[in-house]
C-alpha cells in the first residue's frame, strides 16, 4: 500500500514537473534588442561588457542577490544560500545552501563543491576577470554538501557584495566547467531561470526557460537576445514590433521620441555611470593645484546635464557616485570662468594653456568631451583632443600618456571600490598593481584602507567621507555628471518588479517576468 502510494505520488510529481517544463518552454518568446555586434564570453567570470553582463544575469545565481529592480546593498537577499552567518570579527562567513537546486542541462544538483569551485575560479587571475575582488579571501571550503565557509585574511567592506549575483559572485557548475574547458565561455551552465540554448554569431543568443528553476518555472518560454549594433535599425525594429525590449540611448531626444511611441514605456534606472575628468597631479600642467582649480571652475555641470538630458543625467556631487554606500556630497568648486582665468594667470598662464588629451572616438564619450572642450576654451584652457579608437584609448591612458583622462564608470555600489580603483596609490597607472588611478593621487590612502577593514559602519562612513573630502580638495579629479541606464519596453512586458536599478546593467528577466 505504502509502495503504491509512493509510486502514485512520484508519478504525480513527475507529471507536474513535466507539465511545468512543457508550459515553461512553450511560453511566449521575449525579444530583446541589444547594441552590440556579438556576445563575447558567457562564462560569468569573464562577462565584462554590458552585453555579456545583461545575459549572464538571466542564467546564473549568486549565493545572495540584489532584490530584483534594486541595487541597494541594504536590500541583498538570499539566492542560492537560504541563510548565512558571520563571526563577530567579520572574517568567517558560513553560507547554508538551498537543497534541490538543479543546474541546467542535467548537470545535477548544486552542492557546496560547486560553490567552492566557483569562488576559487572567480578569485584566480587565469580563470576570471574579477580575481582582484577576491584578494581578501583566505580559504573557501565545503563544510558539508550544503554548507560553505569563507575565511577572510582581512575585513572587506561588503563580503555579501562579492558573493552576490554580480561579476565574480556567480556560481557555475563545476562538472560542466571541467568537462567543457575552453568551450565553457560559450556554453556555460548555471542555475538561473533561463538556460543558454545556442549562440548564433553576429545574430542572437537564444535562451530557454529553466522549468526546474528553484523559484518556479518562468512564465516566459524563451528569450531571443538579438545583437543589433545600429541604433537606427534597432529603434526601427522596436517600432515595427520585432522587439519587445530595446536597449536605449542615454539621450533626452531619444527618450522623448521613444516615449511618444504607442504602448511603450521607457525605464531609466541605476547604476549611474559617474564621469570624472581625472587630472595627473604629478606632471605639468596639472601638478599645480591652481591649474586644477582653474579647470574645475571652468566646468559648468548644469550645462552638461542640459546637453545630455535631464531625465537621464544628474550633476555629480562627489568623486563617488551618489547612492553608493559611503557616498558623501562634497562642496565642488562652482562654475566661474573669470576665477578660472585669474587662477591660470596666477599659475603663470596669463594667455591660457593648451593640453594634449587622448580621447576615445566612442560617440557618446566624444560628444560630451567636445562640450567640455568648449567650456574649458571659454576659460582659456584649450584641449588638443587626440581622438583614437576605443581599445587604443584604454591602452594609452593606462600608459599614462594623457594628463587629463575623461573616464565614466559604474562599480559595485560601495564607496570603497570606486575610491580604491580610481584614487588609491596602489591603483596608480603604470605600476604593477595598477587599475585606473590616472590622477596619481594617494592622499586618501590611509582613510580608504582604514574604512575597508573597519567593522563599524558609522566609522566606515566617516572615513569614506573624509577620503572624498581630501580628494575633492586636492582636485584629483573633477566630477562631471552621472548617466543612468535606459531601456524601452512594450507595455505588454511586465518585469515582475519595479525596475529602479540593475547591477547587470540591463533589466533582469526573472521567473516572474511575463508578456501580457
Amino acid at each position, binding site marked *: 500500500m505504502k509502495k503504491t502510494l509512493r509510486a502514485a505520488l512520484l508519478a504525480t510529481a513527475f507529471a507536474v514537473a513535466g507539465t511545468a517544463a512543457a508550459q515553461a518552454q512553450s511560453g511566449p518568446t521575449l525579444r530583446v534588442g541589444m547594441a552590440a555586434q556579438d556576445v563575447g564570453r558567457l562564462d560569468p567570470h569573464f562577462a*565584462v561588457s554590458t552585453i555579456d553582463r545583461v545575459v549572464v544575469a538571466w542564467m546564473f545565481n549568486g549565493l545572495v542577490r540584489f532584490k530584483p529592480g534594486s541595487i541597494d546593498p541594504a536590500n541583498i537577499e538570499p539566492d542560492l544560500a537560504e541563510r548565512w552567518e558571520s563571526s563577530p570579527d567579520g572574517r568567517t562567513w558560513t553560507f547554508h545552501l538551498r537543497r534541490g537546486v538543479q543546474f541546467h542541462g542535467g548537470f545535477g544538483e548544486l552542492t557546496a563543491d560547486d560553490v567552492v569551485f566557483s569562488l576559487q575560479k572567480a578569485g584566480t587571475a587565469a580563470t576570471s576577470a574579477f580575481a582582484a575582488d577576491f584578494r581578501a579571501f583566505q580559504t573557501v571550503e565545503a563544510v558539508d554538501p550544503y554548507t560553505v565557509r569563507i575565511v577572510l585574511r582581512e575585513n572587506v567592506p561588503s563580503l555579501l557584495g562579492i558573493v552576490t549575483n554580480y561579476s565574480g559572485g556567480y556560481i557555475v557548475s563545476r562538472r560542466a566547467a571541467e568537462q567543457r574547458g575552453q568551450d565553457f565561455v560559450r556554453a556555460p551552465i548555471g542555475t538561473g531561470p533561463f538556460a543558454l540554448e545556442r549562440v548564433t554569431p553576429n545574430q542572437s543568443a537564444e535562451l530557454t526557460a529553466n522549468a526546474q528553476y528553484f523559484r518556479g518555472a518562468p512564465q516566459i518560454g524563451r528569450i531571443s537576445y538579438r545583437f543589433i549594433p545600429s541604433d537606427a535599425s534597432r529603434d526601427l525594429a522596436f517600432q515595427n514590433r520585432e522587439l519587445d525590449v530595446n536597449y536605449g540611448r542615454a539621450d533626452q531626444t531619444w527618450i522623448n521620441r521613444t516615449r511618444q511611441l504607442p504602448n511603450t514605456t521607457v525605464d531609466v534606472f541605476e547604476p549611474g555611470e559617474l564621469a570624472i575628468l581625472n587630472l595627473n597631479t604629478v606632471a605639468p600642467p596639472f601638478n599645480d593645484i591652481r591649474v586644477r582649480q582653474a579647470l574645475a571652475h571652468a566646468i559648468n555641470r548644469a550645462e552638461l546635464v542640459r546637453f545630455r538630458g535631464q531625465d537621464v543625467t544628474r550633476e555629480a556631487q562627489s568623486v563617488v557616485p551618489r547612492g553608493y554606500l559611503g557616498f558623501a556630497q562634497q562642496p565642488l568648486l562652482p562654475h566661474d570662468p573669470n576665477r578660472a582665468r585669474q587662477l591660470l594667470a596666477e599659475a603663470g598662464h596669463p594667455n591660457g594653456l593648451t593640453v594634449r588629451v587622448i580621447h576615445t572616438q566612442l560617440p557618446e564619450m566624444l560628444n560630451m568631451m567636445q562640450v567640455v572642450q568648449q567650456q574649458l576654451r571659454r576659460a582659456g584652457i584649450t584641449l588638443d583632443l587626440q581622438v583614437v579608437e576605443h581599445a587604443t584609448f584604454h591602452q594609452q591612458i593606462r600608459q599614462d600618456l594623457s594628463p587629463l583622462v575623461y573616464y565614466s564608470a559604474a562599480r559595485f555600489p560601495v564607496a570603497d571600490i570606486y575610491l580604491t580603483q580610481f584614487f588609491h596609490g596602489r591603483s596608480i597607472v603604470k605600476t604593477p598593481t595598477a587599475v585606473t588611478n590616472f590622477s596619481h593621487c594617494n592622499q586618501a590612502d590611509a582613510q580608504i584602507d582604514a574604512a575597508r577593514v573597519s567593522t563599524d559602519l558609522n566609522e566606515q562612513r566617516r572615513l569614506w567621507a573624509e577620503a572624498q573630502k581630501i580628494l575633492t580638495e586636492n582636485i584629483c579629479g573633477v566630477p562631471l555628471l552621472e548617466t543612468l541606464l535606459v531601456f524601452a519596453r512594450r507595455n505588454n512586458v511586465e518585469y515582475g518588479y519595479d525596475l529602479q536599478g540593475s547591477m547587470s546593467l540591463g533589466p533582469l528577466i526573472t521567473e516572474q517576468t511575463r508578456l501580457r
Partner: protein
Amino acid sequence: MVFFFVRRLLAAVPTLLAVLTLVFVIVRIVPGDPALVILGDQATPEAAAALRERLGLDRPLWTQYVDFLTSALTGDFGTSMVTGRPILDEVAAVLPHTIDLTLASMVFGTVVGVPVGIWAALHRNRAIDVAARILSLLGLSFPVFVSGIFALLLFSLHWRIFPVIGAANLNDLGDRLHKLVLPTVTLGLIMAAYITRVTRSAMLASLSEDYIRTARAKGVPWRRVVWVHGLRNASIPIVTVVGLYVGILIGNSVLTEIVFNRPGLGKVIVGALNQRDYTMLQGLMVIYCFLIVVVNAVTDLLYGVLDPRVQAA
C-alpha cells in the same frame, strides 16, 4: 582552361603569403591590448599578463608568426581569442549570408546596370542618357546607411512588407529570399550605378569602331549589332568592374549588414578589429584574401572566354 585556372591560382600564392605577413604585422602594430579588451577596464596588470601568457601573446613575435603561417597553410586557423570558438566555425556560420548577399547584389547590379548602360549609350546625350547618368550619380552618392534606412522606413515600417531584422533562417529558402530583397536592392543599386557608367562608356567606344560600321553596312540587324558585336567587345571592362566590385562587396557589405541586421563577414571583421581578436582577424583576412584571389581568377578566366586572344597570350 583548367590549366589556365590552376596557373592563376598558383600565381596567387606569393600574394597570399605577402598578405598573411602583412596582416600578421598590422594586427600587432595597431595599438590596443586584447587582454584588456577581454578582461575589461578593471583588469589588473597581473590578470592581463596571465591572460596574455595563456593566449600566447607573450611569446616572441617570430615564434607567433611561424606558428601562424604553419597553421594557416594546413588550414587550421585556430580559435577566436574572445569567444574561444574555432574560427572556421565562426566563418561558416556567417559565410552563407555573405555569399547570398554578394551574389544577389552582383546579379541585381548587373541585370539592371548593363541594359541601362547600353540604353544610355544608344541614346547618347538625349533625355534617356541624361536621366541614366543622373540616376547613376545619385546611386553612387547615397551611402547604404542612408538609402538602407529609407528603404526600411518605407518597406518595413510604412508598408510592412519586409522585416527590419534581416537575419534569415538558412534552412528556410523562402525566409532567406524574403529577407534578402531589401539589402540586395540597396547594395545592388550602388553596383548598378557603377556598371551603368562603365557599360555606357564601353558601349560608346565599341559602337564607334570600324567593325560596327562594317556590320551595319553589311545589313546586319541593329539589335544583333548592339548585343553581339557591340556588347561582346565592350564586355571586358564590364567584367573587370564586376569582378573588382564583387571583391569589394564581400568585405564592404558591412554597412548593409549593420543597417539590415544581417550576419556577415564584414560585421565579423569589424567586431574582431574592435575586440583586437588577433587570431580571428588573421583567419578572416586569409579567407577574405582567398575569396578575392578566386574571384580574380574567375574574372581572368572569363576574359579568356570573352576574348580568346587573352588565353593565347
